[in-house]
């Protein structure tokens, strides 16, 4: 075991796959020479050379169009979109092209590619550089969507994404880049579509993703002190979604809370809540609650950003209040 930061784990995950399979290439803005603006690709150029680690012109459409074309030749490309907000400038390639290709070729062309991207807030980057957009991706048939919350999961899910034959959007929680975690030595390979119970509990189920996971864990610690036993589930993968783990937990606790960084309307939690309402309504002891950012663009002010995002405090308060009601 060694301690690794979330950001270093990204480079290690990509390196693991590039070393294993020479069809894996990495392209994006500033990913090669400088090791990425978030330093998530440091050392890859030195290790794998300029034919496999490529700085591109500043054009997100071209980056995604190119990896799609490259995937059609049998490569297994990893592209970086620096801030996930910039998916908005190349969304056609994702939604109309990548996501539809296998369907439109009647299953004959698969696109084994990964698009990694810095996602979410908490860093004072403001309304156009802080959005948590995994729910946009979740809404598009044909895409797989993952968001790891620990360094070990970063490596394992990156490996799973690269080895998967479908297009995978890999969202990195920007706010977690400097966080550290224990990581075992050797190859790590995880499985898409699996949630993880981070903390077992009996009174309430709290679902969280990415940056919200450590906050939910902190809230659970605090609530344990109040005699409330919370089960925290790290959803990790939105498509495929591990409904078995989620429904199993709800059956046990009878209470469900989702903790979402995205603005309120149509966050991923809304989909899970509707699944639970359909499948497990009679397991519920009380109404479900969604803890989200309000339906606003993210402000960057010190005095506001931390308050609009769900925090350990606001999660704990909401759960406590609901359970005491």
């Amino acid at each position, binding site marked *: 075991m060694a301690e690794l930061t979330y950001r270093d784990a990204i480079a290690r995950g990509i390196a693991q796959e590039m070393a294993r399979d020479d069809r894996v290439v990495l392209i994006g*803005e*500033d990913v090669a*020479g*400088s*090791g990425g*603006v978030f330093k998530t690709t440091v050392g890859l150029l030195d290790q794998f050379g300029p034919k496999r680690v490529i*700085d*591109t*012109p*500043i*054009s997100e*459409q*071209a980056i995604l169009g190119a990896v799609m074309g490259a995937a059609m030749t049998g490569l297994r490309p990893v592209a970086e979109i620096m801030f996930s*907000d*910039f998916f*908005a*400038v190349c969304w056609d390639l994702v939604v109309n092209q990548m996501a539809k290709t296998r369907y439109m070729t009647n299953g004959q062309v698969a696109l084994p590619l990964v698009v990694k991207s810095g996602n979410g807030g908490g860093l*004072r980057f*403001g*309304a*156009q*550089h802080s959005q948590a957009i995994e729910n946009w991706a979740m809404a598009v048939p044909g895409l797989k969507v993952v968001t790891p919350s620990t360094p070990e999961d970063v490596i394992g899910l990156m490996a799973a994404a690269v080895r998967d034959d479908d297009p995978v959007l890999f969202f990195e929680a920007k706010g977690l880049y400097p966080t550290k975690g224990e990581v075992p030595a050797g190859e790590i390979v995880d499985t898409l579509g699996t949630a993880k119970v981070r903390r077992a509990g009996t009174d309430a189920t709290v679902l969280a993703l990415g940056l919200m996971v450590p906050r939910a864990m902190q809230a659970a610690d605090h609530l344990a002190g109040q005699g409330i036993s919370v089960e925290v589930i790290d959803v990790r993968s939105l498509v495929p979604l591990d409904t078995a783990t989620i429904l199993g937990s709800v059956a046990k606790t009878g209470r469900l809370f989702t903790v979402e960084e995205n603005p*309120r*309307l149509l966050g991923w939690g809304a989909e899970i809540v509707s699944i639970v309402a359909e499948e497990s309504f009679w397991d519920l002891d009380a109404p479900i609650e969604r803890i989200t950012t*309000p*339906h*606003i*663009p993210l*402000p*960057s*002010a*010190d*005095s*506001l*950003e931390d*308050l*609009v995002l769900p925090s350990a405090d*606001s999660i704990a308060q909401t759960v406590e209040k609901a359970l005491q009601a």
Partner: protein
Amino acid sequence: MSEHVNAVQPEPDMIQLLTPEGQRVEHPDYPLDITDDEIAALYRDLVLVRRIDTEAIALQRQGELGLWASLLGQEAAQIGAGRALRPHDMAFPSYREHGVAWCRGVDPLTLLGLFRGTNLGGFSPYEHNFNLYTIVIGAQTLHATGYAMGVVRDGAVGTGDPDRDTAVLAFFGDGASSQGDVNESFVFAAAGNLPVVFFCQNNQWAISEPVERQSRIPLFQRASGFGFPGVRIDGNDVLASLAVTRKALDDARNAQGPRLIEAFTYRMNAHTTSDDPTRYRLGAETETWKLRDPIARVKAYLVRNAQLPVDFFDDVEAESLRLAEHVRIGCRALPNPTPASPFDALFVDMPDEVREQRDEFVEFVASIEEAAEV
């Protein structure tokens, strides 16, 4: 000749009216009728915007700003272009155009809100005909194009009335030249013969990527493929920037259609205060560009040629210190946004569900403040 052994040669094709050594040169296509007092006024602008920049970097180091994008090295390109605008023209900046903002009369404190995080711009583009900074690369070139379409529709082009004819000036970088948005704005502008001037500050770098990563040909040559003229200027020469932008804006106002100006310059500082350029470029390159400093050459010219009041340079220096103080003190006093503000500013007509969330959030913040007080 001997005093020019170390002279920095202009790039081929580059329009220059003031050499790095401070020699006035003429260009047949760009005669510039300018008095020494006017050159002195440009000198003042250059010094003051550099001072704003220096002060903002210091404020970032002290934790008063989250980030700053320095204009160091690009003062001449920006002041020349900014001073070429008429009040009713419209400017669409990227995010580094603090010098243009200055020329438009925007208080530097207005710019700091974005970098301090107290707002995301927060000013009205109409107040000084200067749009908000645009950080998603290249989008502003399209906004400028649309604005120019509106100008045409208003009939404010080619009337011959200088108070009516309007041009639009769009700023972008060498990196941005690769964006689809920028290329599509060229297509629109050309197809509609729109009164828009595209001003590309080629500062040689897009974060860690050199301009060769974006283009195999000089960027100004791109224009001809779209069907309008492009020129390259010495971007560190404020007179070239002024003369060439003035001419391009005149052409645009006179219904001659779009123009592209490539200001060949250099980003002397890091991309932003969170970037470390030693990871990707050599210090020697920056040293070479120091020899082309945009301010030193104007000072050299003025010292040698102009009859200025004896205290001129001292006065500008003193004024820059006062401006620095204004920035320093004003920055710390920038108001924090209220909890309701992100909701209130979002819609013209707020949906009820958002209003409910606003009221809940305001209550939540009040409860936290109360708890903190006890």
